[in-house]
């Protein structure tokens, strides 16, 4: 009985040590921490955006999030929202406003349509504004403000999270 309790204590102590070491290890080696985030993708009818959860590394959070968004949904019932070949060139956040500069392919490879354009813009905007530090998103192309993406939306202004386009449960 005595021996048993002793070994239990030892085991617990050992576990604590191991846990401590592994936690300490994280900070020592600065392993990127991971975070669960939401990506907004269009539904089949392109009526609404539906969030899909994804785990990303937090080392370059916004780039990682957009890169996951660009790679498209895992759920087959959702659609891609970003045309192929687009790259994120720069992200600047100041006073709650994120200026995100994309490569020209966002315009050149876009499939058009008001709906197609809205899905693209709000999938970016809603995805980025889920973070507390981002209230609005200004989309830039090669660092410049552009009139529009596909001939409908006014991209000279910045956009905040659009509740109406997210499908209600």
């Amino acid at each position, binding site marked *: 009985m005595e021996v048993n309790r002793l070994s239990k204590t030892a085991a617990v102590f050992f576990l604590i040590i191991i846990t401590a070491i592994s936690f300490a290890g994280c900070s020592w080696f600065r392993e990127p921490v991971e975070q669960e985030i939401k990506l907004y993708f269009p539904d089949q009818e392109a009526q609404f955006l539906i969030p899909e959860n994804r785990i990303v590394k937090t080392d370059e959070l916004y780039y990682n999030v957009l890169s996951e968004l660009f790679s498209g949904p895992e759920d087959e019932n959702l659609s891609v929202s970003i045309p192929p070949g687009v790259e994120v060139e720069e992200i600047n956040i100041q006073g709650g406003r994120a200026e995100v500069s994309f490569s020209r392919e966002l315009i050149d490879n876009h499939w058009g349509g*008001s709906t197609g354009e809205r899905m693209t813009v709000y999938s970016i905007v809603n995805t980025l504004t889920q973070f507390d530090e981002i209230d609005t998103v200004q989309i830039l192309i090669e660092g410049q403000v552009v009139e529009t993406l596909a001939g409908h939306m006014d991209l000279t202004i910045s956009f905040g999270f659009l509740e109406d386009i997210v499908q209600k449960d």
Partner: protein
Amino acid sequence: MRQKLIPFFVLILLITILFTYFNNSKAQDINIIYNNENVNEKLDPLEIEGEILVRASSLAEIFDLELRWIHHLNTLELKADEIEIKMMQHSPLMQIGNQTRVTSTGLLDIEGSKYIPFQPLLEGLGFLIEFEVEDKNFKINQPSTVIQEIRWADDKQEIIVEMDELSPYRIKNTAEPEKLVLEIEDAVLSDEFEDNVSDKNFYVRFNRVENETALQMSIVSRYPIPFHRDGNVSEGEGRLKLSFLPTIDNIIWQDNRLQILGNGDLGDPEMFYLDNPQRLVLDFPQVMVTEFEKEALEAPFIDDISVSQFSHDPLIMRVVLEIEEDKYFNRVYNGEKDRLVFQTVEETRLYNLTQDSRSIIFETDREVAPDIFTLQDPARLVVDLFNTERSKGIPDQKAVKNDLVKQIRTSRFQDDRVRIVVDLEDITGFNMIQSSRNGFFQYEIMLSNGVRDIFIEDGDNYTDVQVALEGKARYEIEEHRAGQEIEIIIWGLDDIPEQTQPELKGLVNDIEITQLDDERSSILLHMDDYKDFEVNSIEKDEIISLSFSDREIAAGERVVIIDPGHGGFDPGAVGPSGLTEKEVALDISLKIYEFISDRVDDVVLTRTEDKFISLRERVRMANQKEEGVFVSIHANASTRSNSEGTETFIAPNSGTPSLILARDIHKELVAGIGLTNRGIKRDNFYVIRNTEMPAVLVEVAFLSNPHEESLLSTDRFRQDAAEAIGRGIIKYFEED
């Protein structure tokens, strides 16, 4: 001391023996797999000196070989259907058919059984052995395909690999452009394999990929291989085809013309000339130099031809023709992409370049077609004379001092033309007069900014006045006598000739044309009573355009601005069969115009042709109207082909009138064309957000949906949609 050492030595000895033993026969952890069966136990593999040996008798049994031990020769014989394999004890050589292979151990006798190296033997018999390093599995496979031949397709644009049946393959990326590597799974070469590709430019080699059953085919060339690395392999029945970029076959002189023949689309080469010696250079993008038979060219004027790969990235083939002085070639467009034709043109000479206060004059000995255009910043007039050379008297530069011209420069430009540059004080119009005398041709380019014409157009309740100029000019509009007189003041014009006085019409009572001073001309319009006028031309323009209306647009009048989406280089969305949004939007808009123009007071279209107009310009055009409604016509798209239906947008900040307009139009449209109702939505679309009037944007149907695209392609459907939208607009006015 010594006694103490003995156990130590014993231990060392034991370790050595154990180590040697395991080193020699530590073959328990390998697996030999044949026909998905582990045949280890039967074969009893031993690993000695890096060679895997197996029991010969078991091997013969499993692979159905006839085995014979010839005692007096100390030789083992194994016979398959057609191949005989011989190995002599204590010899590393293995004779397979009439080939000999060297093994590291040779044949070994272990405890009375013969053991033979199994890899060279089975490979000699035509089996393929794959070694999975991680699991130490040797997998023995039968080849699944036999490669019979490698040859060029007839047009030499494809290499064809003929095989019994297709087997998985992959293109290996190599850093060397001269090398193309293809791996074909489970393949072997036929005994009768024919290589009809290797020649002095190409060399084909086959290798086994180490530890795998793939056969690696490498094609090496003296030149970079014109192969699209991102996969130009196509599969045919029992063959792989590797497609190549076009190459040139020959350069010939025929019908007094130089002809460059290729095996495919040679594209559009860039042409230019080099001096000393005179050379014509032709740069062909995306064309590769391969084997090319350059025949001696029996061409006049051409001394030599060379063909080279000028650049690999981007890929450019350069053809250089050494030609006689003063000879030039022109491309003759014959419509054939694989046969480019060039003909010589004679050189023209330029003489006597002079000028007076308003014109530039020059002469040539042959008739030419000068290419004349103006450029801005700084303002200049350019005259290009093709295949022309300057005679001795023509200076490089000539200072001129008059109101219009600062100086004249001439130069040889791009080696095939003379360029005359006239540096101007300001952009002007120009006219050219050509005449000939004594076999010479004289060209006079008149620099002027004159009035070409003045038009008055009289409509139902408006009068338009247009002053058309030869070049852009600065102008101002002044109102005198409470607007009874409108004066157009224009800078930098020639005297306006009497005959430009137009026929007086409509609201224009009289026109007075006067020269105010050296700089300014005046066109004074005496007007009848009018209610409103606007200027439709931009700040500095070639056509100054005024529009007078004889009645004001009263509150409650029905003005409609219809905005057909996209246009010009912006097609908008494109349907799966190629129908463009810009075309659909324009046609529906024109049909709306037809439908409502008699039922409202004024209809304006932001575009009436296939032309790009920025969103800002559309908004500007709409906001010129003080009253009215704005209706932008579009066709929708998304990434999914099943998205469908009709939706109408208004701006989030817009008031009730926009919403009512949207409801009227949307309701009529959904009822009229019967597609899914996606509803009225609010979003920050540029044109509806920035127009200062009730504004909607209508997405009639989805071009990305094949069914709706086919509807949108019909005249009937477009008419139905247009009339429904038109009814909605009229309903809006009637409710007002």
